[in-house]
């Protein structure tokens, strides 16, 4: 084997008797000392903004002229859940929420199918592994904003995609074609990555398992569904979870490739960015981002609790 890859393994054995015999009292204190800088930074750059976003979502910028004083109003006023009720009555936001959901489901589904297929092929390959590995890392390494420019170019009206397909589709303007273009561009960039993770999962399945299946007369199809898939499932579930959360917050691709304000492909992140950074309407933007956060939290919760995604790799601690 040229490669040694470790991966969130199927639950094998517990770490061989964690040797904690000579534990000292100071260990706990040392641990706190070592862990606290990370928590301090994360509190500042993640914790604080998250809470502040919730606070901001209850406020709205004052606008117009005060009727009693005749002065232009400034500052912000508390509107309670006003921003949230506004959002759920706003077509633009509901479209963004729907786009975010459909893009996520479509992209992740296709990426998983393509990724698993890639992994199965790569697992059979014995020549040129280095070359494959290098080429599969290229889409992963290209900055998403750059790949958005690249796909925007490919999907131009007189660009490569239309020339290849013999069509005259206006891919990057609006509508379903733009949605399809985004799914394709996202799949290109991330399916190889899923393939890489699944491949690592495949490589730790012992050959004996397959030999036993062969002896029992299993065909390739049932071997895949009954043996391969269940054994790579832990790695796959974690990969799918991370991909889901990543697509739910998708910004670079729709923003750079199609641009803001295009209703069929505008995601919640793009809309919230426009509201906050472009128009400095922080209240509605913060409400959107809070809803997106809750959405993501629910998806993550379902994956970890219901499907048992082993995100922290606690079952593989101490592997060699």
């Amino acid at each position: 084997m040229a490669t040694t890859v470790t991966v969130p393994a199927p639950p094998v054995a517990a770490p061989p008797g964690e040797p904690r015999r000579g534990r000292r009292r100071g260990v706990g204190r040392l641990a706190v000392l070592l862990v606290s800088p990370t928590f301090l930074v994360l509190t500042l750059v993640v914790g604080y903004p998250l809470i502040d976003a919730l606070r901001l979502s209850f406020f709205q910028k004052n606008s117009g002229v005060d009727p009693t004083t005749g002065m232009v109003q400034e500052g912000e006023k508390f509107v309670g859940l006003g921003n949230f009720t506004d959002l759920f009555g706003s077509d633009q936001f509901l479209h963004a929420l729907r786009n975010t959901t459909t893009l996520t489901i479509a992209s992740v589904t296709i990426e998983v199918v393509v990724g698993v297929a890639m992994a199965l092929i790569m697992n059979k390959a014995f020549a040129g592994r280095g070359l494959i590995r290098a080429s599969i890392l290229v889409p992963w390494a290209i900055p998403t904003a750059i790949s958005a420019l690249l796909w925007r170019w490919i999907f131009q009206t007189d660009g490569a995609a239309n020339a290849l397909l013999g069509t005259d589709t206006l891919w990057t303007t609006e509508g379903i074609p733009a949605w399809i273009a985004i799914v394709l561009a996202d799949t290109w960039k991330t399916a190889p990555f899923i393939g890489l993770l699944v491949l690592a999962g495949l490589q730790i399945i012992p050959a004996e398992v397959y030999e036993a299946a062969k002896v029992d007369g299993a065909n390739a199809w049932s071997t895949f569904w009954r043996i391969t898939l269940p054994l790579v499932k832990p790695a796959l579930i974690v990969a799918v979870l991370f991909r889901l959360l990543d697509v739910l917050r998708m910004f670079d691709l729709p923003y750079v490739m199609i641009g803001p304000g295009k209703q069929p492909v505008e995601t919640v992140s793009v809309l919230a960015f426009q509201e906050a950074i472009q128009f400095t309407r922080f209240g509605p933007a913060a409400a959107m981002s809070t809803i997106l956060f809750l959405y993501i939290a629910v998806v993550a919760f379902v994956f970890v609790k219901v499907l048992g995604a082993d995100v922290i790799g606690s079952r593989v601690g101490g592997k060699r």
Partner: protein
Amino acid sequence: MTTTTAERGPRRWLPHLGIAVIMVYCLAPFYWMVVSSLRRSNDLFDNTLLPSPLSTENYQAALDPQNKFLQGVLNSLIVASTTTVVGLVIALFTAYALARLDFRFKNAALAIIIATSMFPGISMIIPLFKLFSQIGWLNSYQGMIVPSLSFVLPLAVWNLTSFFRQMPYELEEAAQIDGCSPGQAFRKVILPLAAPGVFTTAIITFIAAWNEYIIARSMVNDPAYMTAPVVASMFTGSTQYDQPFGTQMAAGVIVTIPLVIMVLLFQRRIVAGLTAGGVK
């Protein structure tokens, strides 16, 4: 050995065909970017597989001082390498504790750190943008570096933790028998041996920081501080509707080439790091 007729037939060449398909899938769009960047603007819409005649016109346009693209590359370097170094130093100690020390709430701590990397960037950016506009951090390097830690730190902690976990526990035991404190064991035994893992984590975090877009796009509107991907995405042609695709492809190649070189040099490490650290 069971050699059936099936293994001599399609089974022999099918994997090769599959490999070829995967490589074309991964490389063709990138190849198109390179080819397009080398065309003259007059034949930009040619769909030939090779540019003829070869031209550096697009690169000259991308590097035109007026575009401030070179400044963008420099800014990207400053932001990505500072973020990587700061994130790595902080993550190193935390990951060591999470992987090698036995203390209460260890798994909870790791779970929280990983969970923060899943939060949507936009929910952090809105309050931070507001805060930075008050303290004058918009259009500054720290205004990009500090928020970038929100994704670099979990990534680095996660990667390093899985590297530290793979090292045999006997190492610290031996060090302790020799009279080392846990701190000394870390400095003198673990750290030197973890160097490859630290290096791999550095590459992965650097690529992640180099590719960052939404923070850089939000916190900066002064071209002097824009990072290269932001500059490239904001190139304008002679008119608003005239997209300078050739220039953008040239800029894209320039931004991507350092990463492709890293990938070629360190592919094995990167794959090991990505898969050991779970995902991302």
